[in-house]
């Protein structure tokens, strides 16, 4: 027994390193005086980056390990969860960098952003490898409760506090509904372990199916709220717009990837094998929701004035695209989702980084602020154009390969209707992504003033983040090999 726990702890090191980092950050933060500027707290950021780097190295090192359950199968460590965690760690590191450079967070509170972001990351990592309902609930709540604080981080700003209020109310309601669903699932199948639930739902009588069907739909509400898919997406644009920009960047990566990861695990574990009445309900509603999520996200993005809000809607539609991969219930689908997650990470980061520095210069993030960027900062404008092409799914950029993989999985399983809907959505998406490109290239700007945020270091970081957007679109076979290894481990 003791040896088992020691072995579990050995496989749990990435999370433990992050917890230690978070505690360490609290101490480091307290060594600074009360009115110290957040961007000057070098040791704090060094500690945060060091912790994240150790975690990343540890995670990459454990990619090849044999999959297995730890802590009496409460958590599963498999290549899929490890890859999802790697995506989340990179996203957190980049968001912390952006929070240091951005003017959108009060300078005194910049240290707090780093601490809370790492807390959210721990929740996301728990969620990505959750293998029973308790860990799922704890993961979702760790993720959510700290996210509410992040959303209202700009505490004297009425928009930010309103974003936090809306986020916490919607979050509380959906978590409650999810728990109520879970409690009835527990009542029928008698265990909270996913493995035990799989055994039980193979043979059910009509009565049990009648209870389980609405319960699983309620259970989906909690996960769907984290992904911001359609019936539960109302909070997303408001929260994304009201939060400070580094927080929005963070929200569109970490909770979303964690939610997709847990959705993939739940779907593949419960409904991967057999064909039962429940599978039809779950997969049927998932495919309708995925199609709706894409369409609503894309159509709402068209009329927006604020780039941040447009990116929020576009991230909703990308979540819909990733859900299409879940519907396939196949390994190609999971590979496609992981690849999509990796490309989505870099595309989102570049788009938000550039938007953030433009917003810091002009005070708002309306589309007109991008006018004539190409004459002022040609390199940044070219990176932004590449990212927009990639987000719209135009070859040779990585977004195209990512979409292609999902299409491949859909057609492999004969979901032609979904594939057609996804294709039509891509056409709609091109319109609003290319609007920014048009403004940057063909409009002339009102002033010749340069954007002061585009210093050498920031340009270098944006360039480094842009490299994968291009490279993954050309040399994608290597990453596909890695993503192919991301098998879900089912006990």
């Amino acid at each position, binding site marked *: 027994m003791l040896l088992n726990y020691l072995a579990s702890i050995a496989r749990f090191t990435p999370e433990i390193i992050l917890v230690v980092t978070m505690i360490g950050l609290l101490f480091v933060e307290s060594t600074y005086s009360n009115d110290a500027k957040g961007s000057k707290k070098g040791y704090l950021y060094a500690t945060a980056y060091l912790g994240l780097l150790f975690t990343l190295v540890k995670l990459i090192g454990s990619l090849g390990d044999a999959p297995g359950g730890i802590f009496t199968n409460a958590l599963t460590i498999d290549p899929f969860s490890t890859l999802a965690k790697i995506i989340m760690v990179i996203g957190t590191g980049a968001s912390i960098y952006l929070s240091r450079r951005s003017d959108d967070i009060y300078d005194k509170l910049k240290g707090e952003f780093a601490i809370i972001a790492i807390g959210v990351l721990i929740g996301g990592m728990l969620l990505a490898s959750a293998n029973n309902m308790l860990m799922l609930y704890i993961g979702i709540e760790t993720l959510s409760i700290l996210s509410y*604080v992040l959303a209202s981080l700009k505490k004297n700003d*009425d928009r930010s506090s309103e974003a*936090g209020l809306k986020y916490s109310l919607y979050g509380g309601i959906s978590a409650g509904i999810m728990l109520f669903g879970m*409690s*009835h699932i527990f*009542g029928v199948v*008698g265990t909270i372990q996913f493995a035990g639930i799989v055994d039980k739902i193979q043979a059910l009588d009509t009565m049990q199916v009648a209870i389980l069907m609405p319960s699983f739909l309620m259970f989906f509400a909690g996960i769907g709220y984290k992904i911001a898919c359609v019936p539960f997406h109302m909070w997303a644009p408001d929260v994304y717009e009201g939060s400070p920009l580094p927080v929005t960047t963070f929200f569109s990566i970490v909770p979303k990837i964690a939610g997709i990861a847990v959705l993939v695990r739940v779907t593949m574990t419960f409904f991967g094998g057999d064909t039962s009445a429940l599978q039809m309900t779950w997969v049927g509603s998932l495919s309708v929701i995925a199609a709706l999520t894409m369409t609503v996200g894309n159509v709402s993005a068209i009329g927006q004035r604020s780039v941040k809000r447009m990116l929020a809607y576009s991230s909703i539609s990308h979540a819909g695209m990733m859900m299409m991969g879940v519907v396939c219930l196949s390994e190609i689908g999971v590979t496609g989702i992981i690849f999509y997650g990796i490309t989505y990470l870099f595309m989102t980061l570049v788009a938000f980084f550039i938007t953030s520095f433009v917003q810091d210069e002009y005070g708002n993030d309306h589309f007109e602020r991008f006018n004539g960027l190409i004459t002022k900062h040609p390199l940044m404008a070219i990176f932004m154009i590449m990212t927009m092409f990639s987000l719209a799914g135009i070859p040779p950029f990585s977004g195209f390969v990512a979409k292609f993989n999902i299409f491949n999985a859909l057609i492999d399983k004969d979901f032609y209707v979904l594939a057609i809907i996804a294709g039509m959505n891509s056409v709609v998406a091109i319109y609003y992504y290319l609007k920014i490109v048009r403004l940057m290239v063909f409009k002339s700007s009102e002033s010749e003033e340069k954007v002061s945020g585009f210093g050498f270091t920031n340009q270098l970081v944006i360039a480094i983040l842009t490299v994968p957007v291009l490279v993954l679109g050309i040399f994608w076979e290597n990453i596909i090999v890695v993503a192919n290894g991301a098998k879900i481990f089912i006990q």
Partner: protein
Amino acid sequence: MVSLPSFLVVSLILFLAGIAVMIARKNVIAILLGIELILNAAALNFAAYTRFINNNLDGHVMSLFIIVIAAAEAAVGLAIVIRFYQIRESIHIDDATQLQS
């Protein structure tokens, strides 16, 4: 002897009451109370199922964690409500209108 169905009926009533409070009331504190009602309905369900059907510890552990996490959520929620009140001088949900397309 109190049986399982009576517990389930009570928890269903709690759940519906929570939903009704969230839909009908416009006061943010009342909505937070409605969330607590829903969470308690779920906790009661877990405890009742584990007592009458399953006889394992899973349900008790879940109920305990629900109580703990509900407290944490209420604390953060109330802190945000206080910030909102200091800025807007109201805790009416209809006053949260800054963020609309």
